[in-house]
């Protein structure tokens, strides 16, 4: 039973992960990026993701879980298709991050780590994302949006809704 036939990942990701284990002097160094890339595709670290990653690295599933639980970006249940992460740390807080965060809560009808019923958006209050001089800032998945006011919130959400519209797979809010 080879990984090629058993993989749960897309061929592109499987190839990327194959390359990843060959990249380091020690195979295990591939673990954390591998988990992140797998999560990007599957949405979260499901039991099957953990199992395949463990096999690819050659360590136990328990060992993978032990490491994965340490890192705040890794998650064990699905987030929304677009995960809105609002930084409320000091530099952002001083420039109105909580007002931005509240507006997201109102617009989406969910709180911290909440997912909208259609599974389209999730919301998270996060720690410093390294955009302090362009505060307040957020990330939607990996995209940065900075120098925000609450007034920007509906536009940002609309932008991701229409992005999915164009990809032709939208659950409408």
């Amino acid at each position, binding site marked *: 039973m080879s990984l090629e036939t058993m993989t749960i990942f897309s061929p592109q990701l499987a190839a990327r992960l194959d390359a990843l284990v060959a*990249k*380091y*002097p*020690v195979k*295990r*160094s*591939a*673990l*954390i*990026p591998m*988990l*992140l890339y797998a999560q990007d595709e599957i949405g979260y670290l499901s039991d099957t993701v953990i199992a395949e990653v463990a096999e690819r*690295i050659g360590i136990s599933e328990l060992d993978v879980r*032990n*490491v994965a639980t*340490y*890192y*705040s*970006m*890794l998650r064990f249940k699905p987030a929304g298709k677009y995960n809105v992460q609002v930084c*409320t*740390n*000091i*530099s952002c*807080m*001083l*420039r109105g991050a*909580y007002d931005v965060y509240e507006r997201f809560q109102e617009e989406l009808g969910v709180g911290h780590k909440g997912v909208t019923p259609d599974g389209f958006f999730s919301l998270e209050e996060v*720690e*410093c*994302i*390294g*955009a*302090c*001089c*362009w*505060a307040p800032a957020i*990330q939607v998945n*990996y*995209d*940065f949006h*900075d*120098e925000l006011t609450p007034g920007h919130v509906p536009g940002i959400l609309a932008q991701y809704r229409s992005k999915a519209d164009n990809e032709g797979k939208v659950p409408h809010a």
Partner: protein
Amino acid sequence: MPRLVSHPDEVKIVTRRFGQGAANIDKYIELGGYESAKKCLAQGPEWIISEMKASNLRGRGGAGFPTGLKWSFVPKQSAKPKYVLVNGDESEPGTCKDHLIFLHDPHAIIEGTMIAGLAIGAKIGFIYLRGEYRYLIEIMEKAVADAYAKGILGKNIFGSDTEFQIITQSGAGAYEVGEESALMESLEGKRGVPRIKPPFPAVVGLYGGPTVINNAETIATVPHVIEMGGAAYAAVGSERNGGTRLFGLSGHVERPGVYELPMGYNLKKMIYEVGGGVRGGRKLKAVVPGGSSTPVLLPEEIENLGMDFDQVGKAGSMLGSGGVVVIDDRTCIVEFALRTISFYQHESCGWCIPCREGTDWLKKSLTRFHAGFGVEKDIDNIQYLAENMMGRTFCPLGDAAAMPTLGFVKKFRKEFEDHLNGKPCPFAKHVELAVV
């Protein structure tokens, strides 16, 4: 996109290629890039280290350790391979300077890494970026691939018989991994908990081999030091503090941004002239001078304060990561202290008990206090807790949480007292419910 700013007082050394498309390798070369690495390859390790020592370049991550000296600690002979490690896990609140370096000048990071490698005799360098910086990791990966394609990296760098490889790495969300030994653990595919020292990384580091680990800004500065010459670079800064620093002005300042200013630049001038003063013409209440872990300074303390490691240290704080957070007179310091400690409580890895328990109790105490349910004794208790975390942990995260807390309580005791006995917070609108 992060906005670039400029001011006439800036001395653009590290930022001189920003906004010029230098992420493109041909542009980088056209602007003088990779000449320093070539020069270092010709001159050899001793020359490199002596230039670095002469430059008075000190670690930009926050500790301010002299870079040349750090490199000189790596043993010449080693049974295990040696490594260079670039710390781009930028996550100290108030700090976003490396963000701009990765975005605008990724090849400077590569070139600096190569030079560090040549200095210590390493064949592999790792560039570790925080996971949130995915778009910057992609920029770095492209830059590394381009450097391989041009023969700048690989088995025979610049056609010589010297080898140098670079591997980029993504984190996955952990402030603690910015600590050098925790970063090595993370790079080895483990939980990012710190290692006990000694042995120091220069002797036993990544995969057990001698390792030099430097902050991304430090590494990006290296090619410029070589280009200018160590002494000329040193002359730009202040005594024992060579060159410039990327200061990140944030918070209640009129013109926030990352400014490259000479070491020793006056803090008051930085806020009022470079940053355009406090936003909306408000009064300055306090300044956090070097990222959230550095003790707060009062307006009267910044009058004649030069921003270098020694002067800020003498003033009872730290230069840290150079993230200057400006706080106006409408800010509740108790809320600010609570938000600061909430961060450290969230990020404590739990390895050392004083940090794990201390940050948690501080957060609980401050939460209750800010909600108006504090008692007089709490103020002393907060101070007692913080004092008992200091110096009692493997890594500096415990200190990083305790130091600013002590600063807030000592310098703003009156404001803490104003919150006592059920009185509502005089400033904040976001009062959290006390659940403890």
